[in-house]
């Protein structure tokens, strides 16, 4: 249908846009191995020294540990809330169904600064002091929706009648869950959980408003970039952050592609 010239034109444009998307990421990854303390391009005298330096930096370590803790607990919350909500939305018709799904989407539809500001005024309002939990609540608001979307997509593709069949065969609620529902959902849950982890792990905007004086890894990166010191260490940390977020995303992509028990049979 498309003429040859159109095809070639679109092909070239596609290649250019993909390069535009990837070159900056590859450049910043390369900086992690820069032997020079100056941020000049091209990178010189490749070294692993900065990884060593970053690993031994006390601030980086505690920031990393805080971020990991937050991401793990957030993921757990998101899994529970997102799964419950997706079950209710997909299996039942009830009053206010539309507004519930809209409510879940709101934290990602509104700019992060609104969520952050709103939560921070809520904490002041309620007299809650900043702690790890204020950050976790902030992250949970926008992580629920990733789990919700993943589980909802899986539930829509599986038939609710398998649950009825299980009950007819004499299984109780727990057994139905353990032997029927869980095998169908497990990969969607893992995928949603990984995405929630990745999302929470590198979030900055909501975090700046809900952290108070605490330093998560992204906040440490932001502060250090703005101060302009220790940039080689930042580069090494950035490399690790990219790897730590990209791996869960790739794994979750794989998991949702071949979609659980029902498809394979």
């Amino acid at each position: 249908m498309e003429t040859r010239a159109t095809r070639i034109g679109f092909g070239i444009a596609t290649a250019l846009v993909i390069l535009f998307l990837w070159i900056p990421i590859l450049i910043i990854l390369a900086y992690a191995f820069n032997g020079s303390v100056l941020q000049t391009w091209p990178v010189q005298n490749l070294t692993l020294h900065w990884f060593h330096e970053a690993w031994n930096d006390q601030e980086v370590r505690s920031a990393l540990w805080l971020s990991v803790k937050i991401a793990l607990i957030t993921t757990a919350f998101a899994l529970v809330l997102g799964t419950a909500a997706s079950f209710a939305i997909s299996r039942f018709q009830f009053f206010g169904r539309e507004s519930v799904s809209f409510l879940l989407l709101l934290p990602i539809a509104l700019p992060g600064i609104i969520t952050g500001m709103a939560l921070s005024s809520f904490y002041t309002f309620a007299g809650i002091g900043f702690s790890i939990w204020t950050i976790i609540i902030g992250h949970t608001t926008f992580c629920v929706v990733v789990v919700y979307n993943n589980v909802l997509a899986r539930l829509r593709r599986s038939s609710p009648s398998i649950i009825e069949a299980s009950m007819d065969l004499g299984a109780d609620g727990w057994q139905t869950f353990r032997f029927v529902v869980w095998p169908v959902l497990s990969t969607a849950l893992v995928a949603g959980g990984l995405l929630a982890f990745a999302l929470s792990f590198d979030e900055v905007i909501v975090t700046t408003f809900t952290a108070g004086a605490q330093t998560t890894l992204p906040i440490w990166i932001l502060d250090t970039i703005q101060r302009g010191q220790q940039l080689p260490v930042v580069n090494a940390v950035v490399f690790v952050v990219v790897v730590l977020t990209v791996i869960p995303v790739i794994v979750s992509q794989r998991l949702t592609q071949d979609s659980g028990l029902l498809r394979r049979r």
Partner: protein
Amino acid sequence: MSELAQSGAPVRSARLRLSAELWRRPWLKVAGLLALPVVAFAVVYLGSLVALFISSFWEVDSFTGKVVHTWTLSNFSTLIHEPVYRQIAFRTVWIAAAVTLADAVLAFPLAYFMARLAPPRLRALLFVLVLLPLWTSYLVRIYAWRTILAKDGALNWALNGIGLPDANLAYTNTAMWIVFSYVWLPFMVLPVYAALERIPDSYLEASQDLGGRSWRTFRSVIFPLALPGIVAGSIFTFSLTLGDFITPALVGGANSQFIGNVVHNYVGISNNVPLAAAFALVPVIVMAVYLFVAKRLGAFEAL
């Protein structure tokens, strides 16, 4: 099924009865499932938005620096009457619009190629190549551009390599425009792709049969059908740019303040939450209007 044998008979019958009971009364199950998420969400999130809204009508006492809980419109009149705020709001919205336009132009050929020209395996690869940058820390991607645009960065190195002079883009509004367009591009590609993929081949054939050349087919068939996708993508690019303060802080210059920077400073540094809350309502109102228009254009079906 060892579980069956293990559980004692009375316990088991009780569990069965409970399951059956729940099955017969779906609303109980709905209540059980939804109670936790809805309460958590409604209380924390909606409560927060309401708190934000209310505090925009409060005021900071200039002597004590404490928030005074009396109703006033003074924050809004400050925002309207001080030219600085108007300028910042205008800059934010203007750059958000420019970013949206740039993303639409960049995303279209890629989305078209993915949806209609690429063989399945290449399409899957392109999907990964578009999605991965989206999930890569956005702070990292902004930082990457900060180093690229710097004086000794990769951009000037490349330009000098082909005999061109330095591009002095670091810490300018142009730099912000490039970086925003870069960071949000995947958000535009995906909905445009979804819209283009849904166009049946027969529409294009029909257009050609009726004598439409490539350009005419694009203008009269493809573009109108892709428009809801573009509008859907623009919701992200526009809204995310409106609310951002990291990009202006890292790649913007002295005259690059966004609404987000002001809000962030007022909350974090000068502790003037009421004024910050009032200013933060600007992106919310702009987005509400935008969403209303987008809904009219049928963008939600393309999401």
